[in-house]
């Protein structure tokens, strides 16, 4: 009988002990079981322009993560937050031949203080100028990425430290991260077609009318193509051009207001890559076709570039306009309209000669200037080197619309005055017909900044190009596409792919951990073996312990 009892008790003991062990293990284990975190990363620009290579060359990644203050950075993926980013740290990472650099940008850029944004904008061209084989990625921050970053930071900064026991404990509890990207090595995209769109409004009254050309380039540029939304540069220019197209097509549809100028609208692609679209269009129209509006009487070419939110407006010219020419008339009208009707707007002319020795041309009008067409560019920026033209920080929340609509009104009125060349009475009539619609502008800018518009991402079938073509064809006639492909033997531009990849962050343990675990398991097994071998002892012990209690019954 006692045997039965002790058997029962023995079984109970056997059963509850493992259960409590499981509970202990569950309670002690401090880490949540996190699966690998997957997030999109956007690679830095990589392109060749006229033989010069720019940007980061490489794309594949399979390295451990570290933050930038760790000591050893070679062959590691360096993670930096935008707030801590500086050019010296970047140089340090490159010097130590880091495996990759990942810059973490906040989801909402408006939470960043303005000076950090400004500093980054100024750094962007320098990042691109140093050609590097290290892949540089940008990622948008979310909670998991932030926790990965803080964990990496803790383990990176404690690396040079302390005693062996701490190091041992550290290896057991720390978490390393392995960053792996999917996707192949980057290679040149062959046969990429840059699309440009043109449309026209024919003037009233026969042949040989003078032509006014309005140009804006629709692509955007930034240090990472998938993050360049280009709200101001050149989303604002495109919006103004489309709005002008709408206004003048309305005016031209009435006989009374149908003027004697042809209007040619041109949305050029590849603008940020030294105005490739415009260059080829000019070549095709002037050299290869027999008759084109561009060959005959061109009054002037007005390029629109970055017309967003400031109170300045500059007319950039490469040669000051002569008295009595249509360009001079436009200049004068712009000054008049700005001075009389919008006194808060400061208008001025900036004269810069075309410098053919430079790598890239400054403004779009210089392309036309080289072909001896009178041209100028309107912009609120004073210098073509301004970082706002090439930044990923140029996003919708930044550009406000009162300035844009005011600028549109000024341009529309000045153009109307030049085209119609008439008195105040008719101008009043015109004002009743032309109203710059602000919500139209707003929705255009919203649509343009909703997706990145880098030239590498817009091929001839992209939705942006199709929508622009559709929009133009509502108001203009003869809407045509114009394709530019790089020359095979001596390409002016080469784009590379693998610009957006998915990166996985896997939690890994250092190698020592495995050895530690092996040692622990071996000792556990040894103990188990001894326990099983000497089970008889344990059994006897238990019987002696339980027997007196039973005897007292």
């Amino acid at each position, binding site marked *: 009988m006692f045997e039965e009892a002790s*058997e*029962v008790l023995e079984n109970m003991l056997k*059963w509850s002990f493992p259960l409590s062990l499981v509970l202990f293990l569950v309670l002690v284990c401090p880490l949540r079981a996190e699966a690998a975190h997957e997030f999109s990363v956007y690679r830095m620009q990589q392109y060749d322009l006229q033989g010069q290579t720019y940007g980061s060359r490489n794309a594949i990644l399979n390295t451990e993560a570290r933050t930038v203050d760790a000591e050893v950075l070679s062959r590691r993926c360096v993670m930096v937050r935008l707030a801590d980013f500086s050019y010296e740290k970047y140089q340090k990472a490159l010097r130590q031949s880091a495996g990759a650099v990942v810059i973490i940008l906040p989801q909402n850029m408006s939470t960043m203080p303005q000076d950090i944004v400004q500093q980054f904008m100024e750094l962007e061209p320098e990042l691109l100028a140093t050609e590097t084989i290290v892949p540089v990625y940008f990622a948008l921050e979310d909670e998991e990425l932030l926790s990965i970053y803080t964990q990496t930071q803790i383990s990176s900064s404690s690396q040079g430290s302390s005693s062996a026991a701490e190091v041992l404990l550290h290896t057991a509890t720390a978490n390393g991260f392995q960053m792996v990207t999917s996707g192949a090595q980057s290679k040149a995209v062959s046969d990429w077609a840059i699309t440009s769109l043109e449309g026209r409004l024919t003037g009233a009254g026969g042949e040989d009318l003078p032509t006014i050309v309005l140009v804006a380039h629709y692509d955007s540029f930034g240090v990472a193509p998938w993050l360049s939304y280009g709200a101001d540069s050149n989303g604002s220019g495109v919006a103004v051009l489309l709005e002008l197209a709408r206004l003048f097509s309305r005016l031209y549809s009435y006989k009374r207001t149908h003027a004697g100028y042809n209007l040619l609208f041109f949305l050029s692609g590849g603008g940020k890559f030294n105005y490739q679209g415009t260059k080829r269009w000019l070549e095709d129209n002037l050299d290869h076709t027999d008759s084109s509006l561009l060959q005959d009487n061109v009054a002037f070419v007005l390029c629109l570039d970055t017309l967003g939110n400031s109170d300045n407006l500059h007319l950039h010219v490469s040669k000051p306009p002569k008295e009595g020419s249509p360009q001079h008339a436009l200049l004068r009208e712009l000054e008049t309209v700005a001075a009389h009707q919008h006194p808060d707007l400061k208008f001025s002319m900036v004269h810069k000669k075309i410098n053919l020795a430079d790598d890239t041309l400054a403004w779009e009008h210089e392309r036309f200037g080289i072909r001896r067409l009178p041209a100028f560019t309107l912009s609120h920026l004073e210098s073509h080197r301004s970082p706002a033209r090439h930044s990923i920080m140029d996003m919708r929340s930044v550009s406000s619309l009162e300035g844009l609509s005011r600028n549109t009104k000024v341009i529309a009125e000045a153009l109307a005055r030049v085209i119609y060349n008439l008195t105040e009475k008719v101008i009043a009539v015109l004002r009743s017909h032309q109203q710059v619609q602000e919500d139209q502008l707003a929705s255009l800018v919203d649509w343009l900044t909703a997706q990145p518009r880098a030239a590498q991402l817009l091929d001839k079938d992209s939705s942006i190009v199709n929508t622009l073509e559709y929009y133009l064809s509502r108001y203009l006639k003869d809407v045509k596409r114009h394709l530019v492909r790089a020359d095979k033997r001596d390409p002016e531009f080469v784009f590379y792919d693998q610009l957006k990849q998915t990166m996985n962050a896997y*939690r890994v343990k250092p190698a020592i951990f495995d050895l530690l675990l092996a040692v622990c*398991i071996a000792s556990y097994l040894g103990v188990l*073996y001894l326990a099983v071998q000497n089970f008889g002892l344990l059994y006897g012990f238990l019987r002696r312990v339980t027997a007196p209690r039973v005897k007292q019954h």
Partner: protein
Amino acid sequence: MTLFHFGNCFSLAYFPYFITYKCSGLSEYNAFWRCVQAGATYLFVQLCKMLFLATFFPTWEGGAGVYDFVGEFMKATVDLADLLGLHLVMSRNAGKGEYKIMVAAMGWATAELIMSRCIPLWVGARGIEFDWKYIQMSFDSNISLVHYIAMAAVVWMFTRYDLPKSFRLPVTILLGLCVYKGFLME
């Protein structure tokens, strides 16, 4: 994490079985083939359970937070089949006295180890991502070994006709606990 980690987890899971087999003297009784038969019975019982569950218990579409007590209770009751299976093994296997228990339990637990733990370990522990759950899984298999031994012993005791009445109750309770363990833990 790597093959080494897989090796660690596998040894943590499998070696206790090996040790138990060697040291409990089963190898002296040439009980290996009987263990395999017990394992085959395990497979058969699991198959029957799955068919039964699939046929008679359609998927419950209640609210996500509501725990379906009745449904889960019924499902746990099906685990009684486990006990019946153990009983079957022990009554058919002509092993000696107490060794019946050990044989049945070893075979049963080994079959469970192979069926339910080998593949997750192979796929998971060899990947890049490290997770504590693989070590937990291996350890869990140790615990289930002991659990099955205990369960087999209790089943055996239940079927003994010469068991005094006073011990019937705790034995029954223990049996019940074994079956509804999963249910109670929820």
